[in-house]
Protein backbone atom coordinates (compact mmCIF):
# COMPACT_ATOMS: atom_id res chain seq x y z
CA UNK A 1 0.00 0.00 0.00
CA UNK A 2 1.11 3.51 -0.80
CA UNK A 3 1.82 5.98 1.99
CA UNK A 4 -1.25 7.72 3.44
CA UNK A 5 -2.17 11.26 2.55
CA UNK A 6 -2.56 13.74 5.36
CA UNK A 7 -6.32 13.93 4.76
CA UNK A 8 -6.62 10.18 5.33
CA UNK A 9 -4.62 10.42 8.52
CA UNK A 10 -6.86 13.21 9.84
CA UNK A 11 -9.97 11.19 8.99
CA UNK A 12 -8.35 8.10 10.50
CA UNK A 13 -7.81 10.02 13.74
CA UNK A 14 -11.54 10.79 13.90
CA UNK A 15 -12.43 7.25 12.71
CA UNK A 16 -14.38 8.81 9.82
CA UNK A 17 -13.45 6.11 7.28
CA UNK A 18 -15.04 2.81 6.36
CA UNK A 19 -14.09 -0.17 8.50
CA UNK A 20 -12.00 -1.87 5.81
CA UNK A 21 -10.07 1.34 5.13
CA UNK A 22 -9.47 1.83 8.82
CA UNK A 23 -7.95 -1.66 9.01
CA UNK A 24 -5.78 -1.07 5.93
CA UNK A 25 -4.42 2.19 7.33
CA UNK A 26 -3.90 0.64 10.75
CA UNK A 27 -1.81 -2.12 9.20
CA UNK A 28 0.08 0.35 7.05
CA UNK A 29 0.91 2.49 10.08
CA UNK A 30 2.41 -0.57 11.77
CA UNK A 31 4.70 -1.18 8.81
CA UNK A 32 5.55 2.31 7.57
CA UNK A 33 7.69 4.33 10.01
CA UNK A 34 7.30 7.67 8.19
CA UNK A 35 3.48 7.48 8.13
CA UNK A 36 3.46 6.24 11.70
CA UNK A 37 5.61 9.17 12.74
CA UNK A 38 3.38 11.63 10.88
CA UNK A 39 0.29 10.15 12.50
CA UNK A 40 1.83 10.35 15.97
CA UNK A 41 2.51 14.05 15.42
CA UNK A 42 -1.08 14.63 14.31
CA UNK A 43 -2.44 12.61 17.22
CA UNK A 44 -0.32 14.47 19.77
CA UNK A 45 -1.26 17.85 18.39
CA UNK A 46 -4.99 17.13 18.21
CA UNK A 47 -5.07 15.54 21.66
CA UNK A 48 -3.53 18.67 23.11
CA UNK A 49 -5.76 21.03 21.15
CA UNK A 50 -8.63 21.06 23.61
CA UNK A 51 -10.49 24.02 25.01
CA UNK A 52 -11.45 24.07 28.65
CA UNK A 53 -15.19 23.73 29.03
CA UNK A 54 -16.73 26.06 31.58
CA UNK A 55 -19.13 24.36 33.97
CA UNK A 56 -22.12 26.50 34.80
CA UNK A 57 -23.06 26.67 38.45
CA UNK A 58 -26.65 26.66 39.67
CA UNK A 59 -26.58 30.40 40.29
CA UNK A 60 -25.44 30.98 36.68
CA UNK A 61 -28.27 28.82 35.37
CA UNK A 62 -30.77 30.66 37.58
CA UNK A 63 -29.51 33.98 36.32
CA UNK A 64 -29.76 32.89 32.69
CA UNK A 65 -33.25 31.57 33.26
CA UNK A 66 -34.36 34.75 35.05
CA UNK A 67 -32.99 36.94 32.26
CA UNK A 68 -34.72 34.82 29.63
CA UNK A 69 -38.01 35.02 31.52
CA UNK A 70 -37.65 38.79 31.88
CA UNK A 71 -37.08 39.17 28.17
CA UNK A 72 -40.00 36.89 27.39
CA UNK A 73 -42.42 38.96 29.40
CA UNK A 74 -42.44 41.76 26.89
CA UNK A 75 -42.05 40.19 23.48
CA UNK A 76 -43.24 42.44 20.71
CA UNK A 77 -44.45 41.22 17.36
CA UNK A 78 -41.96 43.45 15.55
CA UNK A 79 -39.00 42.00 17.50
CA UNK A 80 -40.04 38.46 16.70
CA UNK A 81 -40.48 39.34 13.05
CA UNK A 82 -37.05 41.00 12.86
CA UNK A 83 -35.48 38.03 14.61
CA UNK A 84 -37.05 35.59 12.17
CA UNK A 85 -35.91 37.58 9.13
CA UNK A 86 -32.39 37.76 10.55
CA UNK A 87 -32.28 34.03 11.13
CA UNK A 88 -33.52 33.30 7.64
CA UNK A 89 -30.82 35.58 6.25
CA UNK A 90 -28.22 33.86 8.41
CA UNK A 91 -29.35 30.42 7.29
CA UNK A 92 -29.02 31.57 3.72
CA UNK A 93 -25.60 33.03 4.46
CA UNK A 94 -24.49 29.83 6.19
CA UNK A 95 -25.61 27.76 3.23
CA UNK A 96 -24.09 30.10 0.68
CA UNK A 97 -20.83 30.44 2.53
CA UNK A 98 -20.11 26.81 1.71
CA UNK A 99 -21.12 27.23 -1.91
CA UNK A 100 -19.54 30.62 -2.46
CA UNK A 101 -17.45 29.29 -5.33
CA UNK A 102 -20.68 28.61 -7.24
CA UNK A 103 -21.84 32.23 -7.15
CA UNK A 104 -19.48 33.60 -9.86
CA UNK A 105 -20.25 30.60 -12.07
CA UNK A 106 -24.01 31.09 -11.68
CA UNK A 107 -23.71 34.84 -12.24
CA UNK A 108 -21.71 34.30 -15.43
CA UNK A 109 -24.31 31.82 -16.68
CA UNK A 110 -27.15 34.23 -15.96
CA UNK A 111 -25.36 37.07 -17.74
CA UNK A 112 -24.64 34.87 -20.77
CA UNK A 113 -28.26 33.70 -20.90
CA UNK A 114 -29.55 37.25 -20.59
CA UNK A 115 -27.21 38.89 -23.09
CA UNK A 116 -26.80 36.21 -25.77
CA UNK A 117 -30.38 36.24 -27.17
CA UNK A 118 -30.29 40.04 -27.39
CA UNK A 119 -27.02 39.92 -29.25
CA UNK A 120 -28.31 37.27 -31.65
CA UNK A 121 -31.60 39.04 -32.35
CA UNK A 122 -29.94 42.40 -32.96
CA UNK A 123 -27.53 40.82 -35.45
CA UNK A 124 -30.40 39.10 -37.21
CA UNK A 125 -32.29 42.36 -37.32
CA UNK A 126 -29.37 44.13 -39.00
CA UNK A 127 -28.95 41.29 -41.51
CA UNK A 128 -32.64 41.30 -42.29
CA UNK A 129 -32.78 45.04 -42.82
CA UNK A 130 -29.69 44.90 -44.94
CA UNK A 131 -31.24 42.19 -47.15
CA UNK A 132 -34.44 44.16 -47.67
CA UNK A 133 -32.46 47.27 -48.50
CA UNK A 134 -30.37 45.35 -51.02
CA UNK A 135 -33.44 43.91 -52.73
CA UNK A 136 -35.21 47.25 -52.81
CA UNK A 137 -32.16 48.87 -54.33
CA UNK A 138 -31.93 46.21 -57.01
CA UNK A 139 -35.62 46.50 -57.82
CA UNK A 140 -35.66 50.28 -57.95
CA UNK A 141 -35.32 51.37 -61.55
CA UNK A 142 -34.05 54.75 -60.50
CA UNK A 143 -31.25 53.41 -58.36
CA UNK A 144 -30.23 50.45 -60.56
CA UNK A 145 -27.58 51.17 -63.14
CA UNK A 146 -28.15 50.43 -66.79
CA UNK A 147 -26.07 47.29 -66.97
CA UNK A 148 -28.02 45.50 -64.26
CA UNK A 149 -31.36 46.37 -65.91
CA UNK A 150 -30.18 44.97 -69.21
CA UNK A 151 -28.95 41.84 -67.50
CA UNK A 152 -32.34 41.39 -65.87
CA UNK A 153 -34.06 42.08 -69.14
CA UNK A 154 -32.03 39.49 -71.01
CA UNK A 155 -32.20 36.84 -68.36
CA UNK A 156 -34.69 37.50 -65.48
CA UNK A 157 -33.89 34.12 -63.96
CA UNK A 158 -30.53 35.58 -62.73
CA UNK A 159 -32.31 37.90 -60.38
CA UNK A 160 -34.73 35.17 -59.38
CA UNK A 161 -31.83 32.83 -58.60
CA UNK A 162 -29.98 35.51 -56.66
CA UNK A 163 -33.04 36.40 -54.68
CA UNK A 164 -34.02 32.85 -53.90
CA UNK A 165 -30.45 32.15 -52.76
CA UNK A 166 -30.92 34.92 -50.19
CA UNK A 167 -33.85 32.89 -48.93
CA UNK A 168 -35.82 35.72 -47.39
CA UNK A 169 -39.64 35.44 -47.25
CA UNK A 170 -40.08 38.98 -48.54
CA UNK A 171 -38.67 37.86 -51.94
CA UNK A 172 -41.91 36.05 -52.74
CA UNK A 173 -43.62 39.41 -52.63
CA UNK A 174 -41.24 40.96 -55.14
CA UNK A 175 -40.78 38.05 -57.62
CA UNK A 176 -44.16 38.41 -59.41
CA UNK A 177 -43.45 42.14 -59.87
CA UNK A 178 -40.09 41.35 -61.49
CA UNK A 179 -41.73 38.87 -63.85
CA UNK A 180 -44.42 41.35 -64.76
CA UNK A 181 -41.95 44.15 -65.46
CA UNK A 182 -39.62 41.99 -67.55
CA UNK A 183 -42.53 40.60 -69.60
CA UNK A 184 -43.68 44.17 -70.31
CA UNK A 185 -40.20 45.08 -71.51
CA UNK A 186 -40.05 41.86 -73.58
Amino acid at each position, binding site marked *: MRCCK*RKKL*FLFYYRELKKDKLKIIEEHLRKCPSCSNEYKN*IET*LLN*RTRLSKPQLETKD*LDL*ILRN*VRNKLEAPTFWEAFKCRIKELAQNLY*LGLSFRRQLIPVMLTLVIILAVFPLFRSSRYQIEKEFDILQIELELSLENTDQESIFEIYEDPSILEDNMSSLGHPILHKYLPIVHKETSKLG
Partner: protein
Amino acid sequence: MLRHKEEQVIGLIEKFRCGNDEAFDEIVRLIASDIVNIAYCYMKSLEDAKDTCQDVLLKLYRRLKSFRGASRISTWIYRVTINTCIDSLRKKKTTVSLDEAITKDEKSDILVTERVERKDNQIIIRKALEMLSLRQKNVIILKHFEGLKIHQISEILGCSQSSIKTHLVRALDNLRKELGGIK
Protein backbone atom coordinates in the same frame (compact mmCIF):
# COMPACT_ATOMS: atom_id res chain seq x y z
CA MET B 1 -23.09 17.01 24.25
CA LEU B 2 -26.54 17.79 22.97
CA ARG B 3 -26.84 14.53 21.02
CA HIS B 4 -26.82 12.42 24.16
CA LYS B 5 -29.59 14.48 25.74
CA GLU B 6 -31.85 14.40 22.71
CA GLU B 7 -34.44 11.97 24.06
CA GLN B 8 -34.78 13.87 27.32
CA VAL B 9 -35.14 17.15 25.44
CA ILE B 10 -37.83 15.69 23.15
CA GLY B 11 -39.81 14.51 26.17
CA LEU B 12 -39.61 17.94 27.77
CA ILE B 13 -40.61 19.66 24.53
CA GLU B 14 -43.74 17.51 24.37
CA LYS B 15 -44.63 18.62 27.90
CA PHE B 16 -43.91 22.23 26.97
CA ARG B 17 -46.15 21.98 23.93
CA CYS B 18 -48.93 20.62 26.09
CA GLY B 19 -48.80 23.86 28.07
CA ASN B 20 -46.43 22.94 30.88
CA ASP B 21 -44.31 26.10 30.97
CA GLU B 22 -42.05 24.74 33.69
CA ALA B 23 -40.76 22.13 31.24
CA PHE B 24 -38.87 24.95 29.56
CA ASP B 25 -36.95 25.60 32.78
CA GLU B 26 -35.89 21.96 32.78
CA ILE B 27 -34.82 22.22 29.15
CA VAL B 28 -32.71 25.26 30.07
CA ARG B 29 -31.05 23.41 32.95
CA LEU B 30 -30.36 20.49 30.65
CA ILE B 31 -28.87 22.24 27.64
CA ALA B 32 -27.64 25.67 28.80
CA SER B 33 -24.11 24.48 29.59
CA ASP B 34 -23.79 22.85 26.14
CA ILE B 35 -24.92 26.04 24.46
CA VAL B 36 -22.48 28.09 26.54
CA ASN B 37 -19.66 25.69 25.59
CA ILE B 38 -20.32 26.14 21.88
CA ALA B 39 -20.79 29.88 22.24
CA TYR B 40 -17.54 30.12 24.21
CA CYS B 41 -15.64 28.73 21.20
CA TYR B 42 -16.89 31.69 19.17
CA MET B 43 -17.23 34.47 21.70
CA LYS B 44 -13.82 34.88 23.40
CA SER B 45 -15.24 35.72 26.81
CA LEU B 46 -17.42 33.61 29.08
CA GLU B 47 -19.77 36.50 29.82
CA ASP B 48 -20.41 37.02 26.11
CA ALA B 49 -21.02 33.28 25.77
CA LYS B 50 -23.62 33.44 28.56
CA ASP B 51 -25.33 36.41 26.90
CA THR B 52 -25.43 34.52 23.62
CA CYS B 53 -26.84 31.52 25.46
CA GLN B 54 -29.69 33.71 26.70
CA ASP B 55 -30.44 34.85 23.16
CA VAL B 56 -30.42 31.23 21.96
CA LEU B 57 -32.80 30.16 24.73
CA LEU B 58 -35.07 33.07 23.95
CA LYS B 59 -35.25 31.98 20.31
CA LEU B 60 -35.85 28.38 21.34
CA TYR B 61 -38.71 29.39 23.62
CA ARG B 62 -40.39 31.39 20.88
CA ARG B 63 -40.04 28.69 18.26
CA LEU B 64 -40.29 25.42 20.14
CA LYS B 65 -44.03 25.27 19.66
CA SER B 66 -43.70 25.74 15.94
CA PHE B 67 -40.86 23.22 15.58
CA ARG B 68 -42.15 20.70 13.03
CA GLY B 69 -39.49 18.07 13.52
CA ALA B 70 -38.12 18.32 9.98
CA SER B 71 -34.66 17.76 11.45
CA ARG B 72 -33.41 16.34 14.73
CA ILE B 73 -33.90 18.63 17.69
CA SER B 74 -30.16 18.70 18.47
CA THR B 75 -29.39 19.66 14.84
CA TRP B 76 -31.87 22.50 15.12
CA ILE B 77 -30.44 23.73 18.44
CA TYR B 78 -26.89 23.61 17.06
CA ARG B 79 -28.00 25.61 14.03
CA VAL B 80 -29.77 28.24 16.13
CA THR B 81 -26.71 28.48 18.41
CA ILE B 82 -24.23 28.92 15.56
CA ASN B 83 -26.42 31.51 13.86
CA THR B 84 -26.84 33.45 17.10
CA CYS B 85 -23.09 33.37 17.76
CA ILE B 86 -22.36 34.70 14.27
CA ASP B 87 -24.97 37.40 14.82
CA SER B 88 -23.50 38.40 18.19
CA LEU B 89 -19.99 38.51 16.75
CA ARG B 90 -21.16 40.80 13.99
CA LYS B 91 -22.84 43.07 16.51
CA LYS B 92 -19.83 43.27 18.77
CA LYS B 93 -16.81 43.32 16.47
CA THR B 94 -14.74 44.34 19.45
CA THR B 95 -11.85 42.30 20.73
CA VAL B 96 -11.71 41.21 24.30
CA SER B 97 -8.48 40.56 26.11
CA LEU B 98 -7.83 36.83 25.97
CA ASP B 99 -6.10 36.79 29.33
CA GLU B 100 -9.24 38.14 30.92
CA ALA B 101 -11.35 35.59 29.09
CA ILE B 102 -9.55 32.50 30.30
CA THR B 103 -8.78 33.05 33.98
CA LYS B 104 -12.23 32.28 35.35
CA ASP B 105 -12.66 28.62 34.50
CA GLU B 106 -9.32 27.29 35.71
CA LYS B 107 -9.38 24.92 38.65
CA SER B 108 -7.63 26.16 41.75
CA ASP B 109 -5.95 22.88 42.71
CA ILE B 110 -3.61 22.74 39.69
CA LEU B 111 0.02 23.67 40.25
CA VAL B 112 0.85 27.23 39.31
CA THR B 113 3.32 26.32 36.56
CA GLU B 114 0.94 23.83 35.04
CA ARG B 115 -1.85 26.36 35.23
CA VAL B 116 0.24 29.01 33.51
CA GLU B 117 1.21 26.51 30.80
CA ARG B 118 -2.40 25.47 30.29
CA LYS B 119 -3.52 29.07 30.21
CA ASP B 120 -0.91 29.85 27.58
CA ASN B 121 -2.07 26.89 25.52
CA GLN B 122 -5.67 28.05 25.77
CA ILE B 123 -4.67 31.49 24.53
CA ILE B 124 -2.72 29.99 21.64
CA ILE B 125 -5.59 27.68 20.68
CA ARG B 126 -8.12 30.53 20.77
CA LYS B 127 -5.86 32.75 18.72
CA ALA B 128 -5.38 29.94 16.20
CA LEU B 129 -9.16 29.51 16.01
CA GLU B 130 -9.53 33.20 15.30
CA MET B 131 -7.25 32.84 12.30
CA LEU B 132 -9.61 30.35 10.63
CA SER B 133 -12.31 31.34 8.21
CA LEU B 134 -15.90 31.12 9.42
CA ARG B 135 -16.53 27.92 7.46
CA GLN B 136 -13.43 26.24 8.86
CA LYS B 137 -14.24 27.48 12.35
CA ASN B 138 -17.77 26.05 12.22
CA VAL B 139 -16.50 22.67 11.10
CA ILE B 140 -13.63 22.43 13.56
CA ILE B 141 -15.80 23.46 16.51
CA LEU B 142 -18.48 20.90 15.70
CA LYS B 143 -16.03 18.13 14.81
CA HIS B 144 -13.08 18.54 17.12
CA PHE B 145 -14.55 20.29 20.14
CA GLU B 146 -18.12 18.94 20.03
CA GLY B 147 -17.17 15.50 18.66
CA LEU B 148 -19.98 15.25 16.11
CA LYS B 149 -19.90 12.93 13.11
CA ILE B 150 -19.35 14.38 9.66
CA HIS B 151 -22.87 13.50 8.47
CA GLN B 152 -24.32 15.29 11.50
CA ILE B 153 -22.24 18.39 10.77
CA SER B 154 -23.38 18.35 7.16
CA GLU B 155 -26.99 18.33 8.39
CA ILE B 156 -26.35 21.24 10.75
CA LEU B 157 -24.45 23.40 8.27
CA GLY B 158 -26.54 22.34 5.28
CA CYS B 159 -23.74 21.26 2.97
CA SER B 160 -22.25 18.07 1.57
CA GLN B 161 -20.09 15.66 3.54
CA SER B 162 -17.19 16.00 1.10
CA SER B 163 -17.28 19.76 1.58
CA ILE B 164 -17.16 19.26 5.35
CA LYS B 165 -14.17 16.92 5.00
CA THR B 166 -12.33 19.41 2.81
CA HIS B 167 -12.94 22.27 5.25
CA LEU B 168 -11.98 20.05 8.18
CA VAL B 169 -8.65 19.11 6.63
CA ARG B 170 -7.91 22.73 5.67
CA ALA B 171 -8.83 23.88 9.16
CA LEU B 172 -6.60 21.23 10.75
CA ASP B 173 -3.73 22.15 8.44
CA ASN B 174 -4.10 25.80 9.41
CA LEU B 175 -4.36 24.90 13.10
CA ARG B 176 -1.25 22.80 12.77
CA LYS B 177 0.65 25.72 11.28
CA GLU B 178 -0.55 28.06 14.02
CA LEU B 179 -0.11 25.58 16.86
CA GLY B 180 3.30 24.30 15.82
CA GLY B 181 4.82 25.36 19.12
CA ILE B 182 2.10 24.12 21.47
CA LYS B 183 3.38 22.12 24.44
